[in-house]
């Protein structure tokens, strides 16, 4: 049994990665409780209407039902993953961009303390991935996927053992959805 998981901080490109895997032919588990909106026009690709973390926290999420399937569990939820056999794609994105995107979604500007807390969560999650013996993982940078989808998807496909239809998966990458992009001063 193996559970495939897409993870990362919220707004780090996890929905895009779910779509990549979906178009690439993997069995992706999600429901339609949370509808696509302006923040995620192509959908969230989540279970439990996005609130899978609650079910993982109380131990009621039946992860064994999702054998050989991809589910999305954002970074904080990794803390509550039961013992298993996982292959995890962990998304990374510039933290300022994540904060900007979260601020828009919440309708409130997140501050430095929020940024620090999410930075620590990110580091905590990466340490957990490194330390748990039942997890095999790869990190994927959101901006690199936008910059060179083929190269990154081939790298992911290699990690997954060559089960993706790379040509189909590439179609999920829509650079126009890379909003909240941090301006780089030259």
């Amino acid at each position, binding site marked *: 049994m193996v559970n495939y998981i897409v993870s990362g901080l*919220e707004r780090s490109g996890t929905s895009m990665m779910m779509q990549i895997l979906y178009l690439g032919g993997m069995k992706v588990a999600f429901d339609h409780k*949370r509808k696509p909106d302006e923040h995620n026009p192509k959908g969230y690709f989540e279970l439990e*209407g*996005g*609130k899978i*973390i*609650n079910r993982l926290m109380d131990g009621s999420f039946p992860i064994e039902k999702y054998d050989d399937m991809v589910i999305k569990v*954002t970074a*904080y939820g990794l803390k509550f993953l039961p013992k298993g056999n996982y292959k995890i794609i962990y998304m990374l994105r510039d933290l300022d961009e994540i904060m900007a995107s*979260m601020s828009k*979604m*919440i309708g*409130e500007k*997140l501050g430095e*303390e*929020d940024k*620090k*807390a*999410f930075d*620590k*969560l990110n*580091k*905590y999650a990466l340490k957990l991935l490194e330390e748990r013996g039942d997890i095999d993982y790869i990190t994927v940078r959101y901006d690199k996927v936008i910059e060179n989808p083929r190269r990154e998807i081939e790298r992911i496909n290699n990690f997954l053992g060559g089960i993706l239809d790379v040509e189909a998966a590439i179609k999920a990458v829509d650079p126009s959805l890379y909003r909240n992009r941090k301006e780089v001063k030259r």
Partner: protein
Amino acid sequence: MVEDKKYTTVSIPTPLFKKIEERIKGTGFTSVSSYVTYVLREIIAEDEESEEAFSKEDEERVKERLRALGYLD
């Protein structure tokens, strides 16, 4: 430009110095200075680690934001 010195001097009470001298006898520490440097490095590393750690306070802040984002009840 003057280069920074690699070492500087700090003062500690003489009785403490003598206690450390006794303590490091037969150990790998060749001087009181090397022992004190080792201990201070350990303390600083511990502090830095706890500053970096995902604390209960950080966790509560994250949970509050995840609720607002619709990821937690």
